[in-house]
């Protein structure tokens, strides 16, 4: 019953969306505002309809309705209720409905805004949003239906179908397969929705950009309207990526946070286009240049986002994440190709109207440095796409070898993959260059800037960074060249950014005769985008310090210990005190060791590394014991033990210097995005009215 309601709601949503597309097109092309209003109502209807569908899945999940194949695939009786609710995005069919539901939510929020000044955009924003939504609904209804049920045929076979096939009876399995224990982690529970929020939120700027191209209203109105959407999309994407890293660090038990797994890289791709877009959009608003480039970037971001949804869900990439394999790949490809061709066609049509209002004059001007920033991000994007698709390229290149036997030894068609080494060595210098730009760009002038003026601004922070680096060299004894260079860049950016805050707060406190701190607070309130951006930069620097720490200075060891024995790693000593094995009431067997940790011979606490064995899924899960401090993490894993005597046990130990700077930096980073995205005190309508009034008076 509930399944039929949910499925019916999906079908009605699709019909509503198709009607909305038709009505909006008709209304826009024939100039019939009432049809556009009707399309708007259709758009508003999709959200409650999809809410019914999503709630139906949730109800089935909570009610243990194992006759529904999706419920059976992702839940089991022993799972707590909150995990059953979040199983909505635990598998592909549910994820797609969840995606559509979020999409409808965002589209509704956009539709409800005040459209009086942008009436001509409305039908086209509706068309783009609903076409995207309809695409995902077709996937859900036709290929990945979460409401399919099991039916037993008279011969005893069990088949899946939405509606009862002739002569069958409903089949209810006694229990479900449950969620992989590795995924039962708070980070993993909120990581997919965050990425999805980021993904769907990117549809909005794309929809406005397309509306601008169709209507020919190609000034930067579309950019101003969608700036905040892009920023929120970016916050969610960043948060999703960070939570994924935290999950890997806590759960996967190798003391790492990012493995350049193809699916991880795929999730990074939209972030790599959204970040330069945020930067270059500011240049267009300020100087009226980069108009073509911004259009290209917003189209690229949309396509890459759809692509990332596909890559993470299709199983074309052999990876730990590819739990889901299905036949929807060709449909994604068709959608991407069609939307790319249409978008580029529109862009070419409007190309002459998007002429720049100014030009780049100096290589060291602020706008040139922003352009270089954009190109570096795109370079990283190319590196990542190259890496993700290299196995597919090399396999396909076998065709070249067959056609031209002369080069057959090069193009053998043998599948070749590239590992983390490739990504690290290819993107490392590009990230470093971005850090450097982050340092000098705030000091460069708009319009024209010479090496001399820039040098005059740069030398002081550069000197501060060099002195600080000297301290690191002498006091901390760091001798690694790569680390020294990277740390110098971090300190340089920090010096520049703090100096920018200081200079502006100082000027403000002098001019208004106020306290420095008050001036600083008001500063962030006046120019949120700029100072929010600087806070984000500081967060990135802190994250970079954490990454330098764990990547270049991680140490590890392992030991088999008898009770009372110790192992030493750096300044830490771990003493193995006891081990207990017990069953829990949620169907786990837990082996838990007690470790007393000493730092420089002083006891600093107890750690409890453990191994949980899940009876139901017959799978163990290793949970590290971690002692975190601002300085480092001490991370210990229980590898094995003697089950009967519990006398000896084997441990693996990691020392991860500075890793918490990564998580702390992430928090600062998010704080900065909130500052930047928070509405300004004066909405731009007020500013424009005032400007108009001033113009009249003049």
């Amino acid at each position: 019953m509930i399944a039929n309601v949910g499925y019916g709601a999906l079908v009605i949503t699709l019909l509503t969306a198709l009607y909305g597309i038709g009505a909006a097109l008709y209304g826009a092309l024939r100039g019939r505002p009432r049809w556009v209003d009707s399309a708007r109502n259709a758009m508003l209807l999709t959200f409650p309809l999809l809410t019914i569908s999503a709630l139906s899945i949730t109800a089935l999940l909570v009610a243990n309705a194992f006759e529904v194949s999706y419920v059976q695939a992702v839940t089991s009786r022993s799972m707590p209720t909150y995990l059953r609710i979040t199983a909505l995005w635990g598998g592909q069919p549910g994820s797609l409905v969840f995606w559509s539901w979020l999409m409808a939510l965002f589209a509704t929020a956009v539709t409800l805004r005040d459209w009086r000044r942008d009436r001509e955009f409305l039908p086209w924003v509706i068309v783009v949003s609903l076409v995207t939504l309809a695409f995902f609904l077709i996937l859900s209804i036709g290929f990945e239906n979460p409401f399919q049920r099991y039916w037993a045929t008279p011969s005893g076979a069990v088949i899946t179908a939405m509606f009862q096939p002739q002569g069958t009876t409903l089949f209810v399995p006694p229990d479900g397969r449950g969620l992989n224990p590795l995924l039962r982690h708070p980070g993993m529970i909120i990581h997919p929705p965050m990425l999805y929020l980021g993904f769907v939120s990117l549809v909005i700027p794309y929809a406005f950009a397309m509306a601008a191209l169709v209507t020919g209203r190609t000034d930067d109105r579309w950019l101003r309207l969608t700036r905040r959407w892009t920023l929120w999309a970016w916050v969610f994407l960043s948060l999703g990526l960070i939570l994924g890293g935290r999950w890997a660090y806590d759960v996967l038990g190798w003391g790492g946070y990012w493995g350049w797994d193809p699916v991880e890289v795929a999730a990074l791709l939209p972030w790599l286009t959204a970040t330069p877009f945020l930067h270059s959009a500011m240049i267009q608003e300020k100087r009226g240049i980069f108009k073509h480039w911004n259009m290209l970037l917003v189209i690229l971001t949309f396509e890459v986002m759809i692509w990332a949804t596909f890559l993470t869900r299709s199983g074309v990439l052999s990876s730990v994440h590819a739990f889901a394999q299905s036949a929807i790949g060709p449909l994604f490809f068709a959608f991407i190709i069609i939307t790319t061709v249409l978008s580029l066609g529109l862009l070419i049509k409007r190309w002459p109207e998007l002429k720049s209002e100014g030009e780049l004059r100096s290589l060291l001007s602020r706008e040139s440095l922003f352009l270089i920033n954009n190109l570096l991000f795109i370079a990283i994007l190319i590196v990542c796409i190259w890496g993700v698709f290299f196995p597919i390229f090399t396999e396909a290149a076998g065709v070249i070898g067959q056609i031209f036997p002369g080069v057959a030894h090069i193009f053998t068609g043998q599948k070749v993959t590239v590992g983390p080494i490739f990504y690290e060595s290819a993107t490392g210098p590009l990230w470093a260059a971005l850090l450097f730009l982050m340092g000098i760009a705030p000091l460069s002038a708009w319009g024209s800037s010479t090496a001399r003026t820039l040098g005059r601004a740069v030398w002081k922070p550069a000197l501060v960074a060099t002195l600080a680096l000297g301290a690191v060299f002498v006091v901390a004894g760091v001798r690694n060249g790569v680390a020294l260079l990277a740390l110098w860049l971090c300190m340089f950016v920090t010096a520049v950014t703090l100096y920018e805050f200081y200079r502006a707060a100082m000027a403000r406190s002098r001019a208004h005769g106020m306290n420095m701190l008050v001036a600083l607070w008001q500063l962030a309130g006046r120019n949120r985008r700029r100072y929010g951006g600087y806070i984000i930069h500081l967060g990135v620097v802190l994250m970079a310090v954490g990454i330098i720490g764990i990547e270049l200075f991680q140490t590890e060891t392992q030991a088999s210990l008898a009770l009372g024995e110790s192992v030493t790693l750096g300044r830490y000593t771990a003493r193995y005190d006891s081990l207990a094995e017990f069953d829990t009431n949620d169907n786990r067997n837990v082996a838990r060791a007690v470790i007393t940790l000493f730092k420089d011979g002083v006891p600093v606490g107890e750690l409890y590394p453990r191994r949980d064995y899940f009876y139901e899924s017959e799978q163990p899960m290793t949970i590290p014991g971690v002692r975190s401090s601002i300085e480092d993490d001490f991370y210990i894993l229980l590898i094995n033990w003697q089950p009967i005597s519990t006398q000896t046990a084997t441990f693996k130990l990691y020392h991860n210097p500075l890793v918490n700077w990564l998580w702390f930096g992430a928090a600062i980073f998010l704080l900065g995005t909130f500052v930047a995205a928070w509405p300004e005190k004066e909405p731009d309508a007020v500013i424009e009215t005032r400007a108009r009034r001033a113009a009249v008076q003049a």
Partner: protein
Amino acid sequence: MNKFMIGGIILLAGVVFLIVTSTVAGAQYFYTVDELIERGAEAVGTPARISGAVIGETIEYDLATLTLNFEIAHMPADSQLLNDEGGLALALYQAVNDPSRTRLRVEYVGPLPDLLQNEAQAIMTGRLGEDGIFYADELLLKCPTRYEEAAPEQTGN
């Protein structure tokens, strides 16, 4: 405008250089067990990525040195082939229970992975040694029966 052209060309050249050198440094040949054995001496020592079905009874773990030894059986790498065989779970089952499949001994030093078990798919990067053992630096495991791919027919029983 010239200085922008020169700057752009330098940047482009740098990126191409980075991609080419990193690809050479990071490339790993993707082999099935059969392909690796076929190449014989030629494959010894070159970085490779290999996938196969874990044979449960061959798993040995030395606690003192954290050295893991097990055998994998040949399985087709192509996802299309896997679909023809009826899904990854079935392909793994067939690979493990077919004595005529080529087998390869693997050695890996590190913590015993949680997912290592009979009929898991092991995806490894490493090098083939002269002794015919594959020395893995990295070990990824997939157990399809635990997740979505299992055919509903199997669940019914």
